[in-house]
């Protein structure tokens, strides 16, 4: 157990505003507006791979979505289907330079199956 003060690394501060810019990117990068096929709900959604999904509500789901949390599963099946349909249409394919400003490191050559 160290038991001391909170450790501080001896590094210079980053570029001014960089942390804030990255934060915005991590929060909103890759998100697209998706309208539910069944009701008036509109969310921001992201999909980086078939199994990954990210859903950012901007409204109160209990108010705009009639099917919300009604089923066994939390959330809404219809909305999930709407996001999957958008993914099939290629909506989440990244457009370099727009989605990932300065974060993706082009020199990174990790395992090829990750980069593919």
């Amino acid at each position, binding site marked *: *157990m160290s038991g001391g003060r909170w450790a501080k690394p001896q590094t210079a501060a*980053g570029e001014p505003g960089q942390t804030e810019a990255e*934060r915005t990117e991590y929060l909103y990068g890759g998100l697209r507006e998706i309208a539910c096929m069944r009701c008036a709900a509109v969310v921001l959604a992201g999909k980086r*791979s078939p*199994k990954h999904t990210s859903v950012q509500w*901007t409204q109160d789901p209990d108010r705009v979505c009639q099917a919300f949390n009604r089923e066994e599963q939390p959330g809404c099946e219809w909305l999930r289907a709407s996001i999957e349909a958008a993914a099939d249409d290629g909506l989440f394919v990244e457009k370099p330079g727009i989605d990932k400003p300065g974060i993706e490191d082009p020199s990174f050559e990790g395992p090829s199956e990750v980069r593919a």
Partner: protein
Amino acid sequence: MSVRNIDTGATAARYARGWHCLGLAETFRDGQPHAIEAFGTKLVVWAGQDGELHALDGYCRHMGADLTQGTVKGDSIACPFHDWRWGGNGKCTGIPYAKRVPLRARTRGWPTSEQNGQLFVWNDPQGNPPIPEQAIPEIPGVNTEQWSDWIWDQRVISGSNCREVIDNVADVAHFFYVHHAFPTQFSNIFSGHTATQYLRSKARPDYMKDPKKAEGSTLRSEATYFGPSYMVNWLWPAMNGHEIECVLINCHYPITEDSFMLQWGLAAKGFPGMEPEHIQILGQKLHKNFGDGFLQDVEIWENKTKIDNPLLCEEDGPVYQLRRWYEQFYVDVEDISGEMTNRFEFEVDTTRANEVWEAEVAENLALRAEREKAEA
């Protein structure tokens, strides 16, 4: 390519608004004042004659003496220095040697509540009353005959801010490296003042005495933070395919900005027809099991640095969204933005990570087999 720096940011200048659990309520009902170092000061906690629990700033507003060394008199706490009496609402209830109490004799108090057999204090830097929607929920079942008692433990964590504990809600990969389990399914929902982690995992056979037993050793887990510091974690561990139900409370209160008290308590549900003492033993075993898991995290927390710009890969969980949710407890209520409380859902794709982990474990098992062969 330039070197990446860690942005340690500024330390939080305040303590979170919300209910903080101080421990099992019964431990405070012995007629004595109790000292709790929290929120940058010392609190005095006591039960009045009426049985109600109270929490005040521990330093008497008369001459600054330590009320935790005082005495409970009636429903008030009496100062050891000059016997000034303070009521649970923070008002001076009497000064035995004085004709009247000065008008300004009012100290800082923390509203208290009891739920699930535990004592909570409401901390709010703005001094507002508790927000009704953020009341700690009752956990159905526990404190009945079918369940064990709470088995409770605590530990001071120094050199670390309590935000480190919160980060774990969104941290999928540490389950493999720190807790020696494969996180096979992982998702999060943040909404309002709650943040939930849904997890399914199975044990790493390379960390088991008998690797063959790993297959039937799985875990379902649903863990929700109600506010900034009180997590209810429903756990369904299965051993040899038999599922057990238990609840783990994971809670903390800040002591200073770089130390906090971590507490964890477990209650287990017995199988039908099980003797009460056997339910208790089951609870103790599970408490030891999951408590050991906590201590694995502690080692990391006590030695890491604060980092405001974590560098994430696509297989990581939503750390930034979780911290945005947590931020709501550190701003004035008027400044809580929709961004902080709007519902956010995230499902991690664990396919790639688990493929790599399975291969790593297989390699470790092969090495172990070779070693055992050589020793035989």
